[in-house]
């Protein structure tokens, strides 16, 4: 398409889009007002029916937990894709990457960053476990807590060296945790099918409202999601760091063509 035709198409379609968007905007409820009837129903039933005090979690992990399972596997597939792409390729080999810009002064990690990073690791892990465990009582849940848990690993990296990360966790265990978390969600769902006759039915005892061990299978799903998300983010972090710091391109042999990008640099 020529630039002229493209511009003509734009000027022809822009007013139409503008009118439709404007009509939609004028049809919106006023800021801060809504007549979301589904929301009001859920607000009324989530505590008496499911003993869940955080209604958002009641929607995500009970009433619409099949949707959340789909999102779970989107995340799983995304992490798997990144890890595949960033894994060692045929023309890369492990080794220490040489600093391309030699001669510049690289500041060492300051003591302040090290101390603050290490001091924050413990509280971060504890807060993450709190967010995951209290998903059905207060705002938060497996997803948010999982990401917070993964930032604890990031803090270790910031406070130390890349090598320390590999002493912290074996890659295999993290992969297992990610797959186990994703599988745990499905297993809980299938258990509902077996025990109550429908997939992801809330089959466990509901307990007392406001207690940690209440809301049936919702806390269990949150733990599975937390494990999967935390492990997934750690895998992403690990794959990127590995790619940046460990893998280097194999030097081309003399009869091989040199990558034009590298020659120009």
């Amino acid at each position: 398409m020529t630039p002229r035709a493209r511009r003509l198409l734009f000027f022809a379609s822009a007013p139409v889009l503008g009118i439709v968007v404007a009509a939609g905007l004028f049809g919106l409820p006023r800021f801060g007002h809504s007549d979301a009837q589904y929301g009001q129903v859920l607000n009324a039933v989530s505590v008496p029916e499911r003993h869940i005090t955080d209604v958002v979690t009641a929607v995500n992990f009970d009433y619409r937990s099949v949707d959340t399972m789909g999102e779970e596997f989107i995340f799983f597939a995304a992490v798997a894709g990144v890890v595949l792409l960033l894994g060692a390729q045929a023309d890369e080999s492990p080794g220490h990457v040489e600093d391309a810009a030699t001669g510049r002064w690289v500041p060492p990690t300051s003591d302040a960053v090290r101390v603050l990073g290490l001091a924050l690791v413990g509280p971060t892990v504890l807060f993450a476990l709190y967010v995951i465990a209290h998903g059905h009582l207060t705002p938060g849940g497996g997803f948010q807590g999982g990401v917070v848990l993964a930032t604890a690993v990031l803090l270790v990296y910031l406070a130390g060296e890349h090598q320390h990360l590999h002493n912290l966790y074996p890659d295999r265990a993290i992969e297992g945790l990610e797959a186990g978390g994703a599988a745990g969600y499905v297993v809980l769902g299938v258990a509902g099918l077996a025990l109550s006759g429908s997939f992801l039915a809330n089959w466990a005892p509901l307990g007392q409202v406001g207690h940690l061990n209440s809301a049936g299978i919702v806390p269990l799903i949150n733990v599975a999601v937390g494990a999967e998300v935390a492990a997934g983010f750690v895998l992403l972090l690990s794959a990127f760091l590995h790619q940046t710091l460990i893998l280097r391109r194999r030097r081309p042999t003399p009869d091989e063509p040199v990558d034009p990008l590298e020659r120009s640099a």
Partner: protein
Amino acid sequence: MNVLIAVALILIGTAGTLVVVIQDPLRQALTVSLFGILLGILFFAVQAPDVALSEIVVGAVALPLMILLALAKVRGGTR
């Protein structure tokens, strides 16, 4: 509460514009993190603490981190 929402909206508009205007990807990564925190504050002000928590962990931590790591890789490879 209305004042808080108004202030948050203005700051979000400013931070969002900054993210677009700034050309250096490294500075953009840090600005987008600030943008994420401000969005989190707005979500909290309009009584959506669940979404606020997600926005803060993803928008302010995970997204800038991935951008920084990708930048480190890209720059390491071409220089």
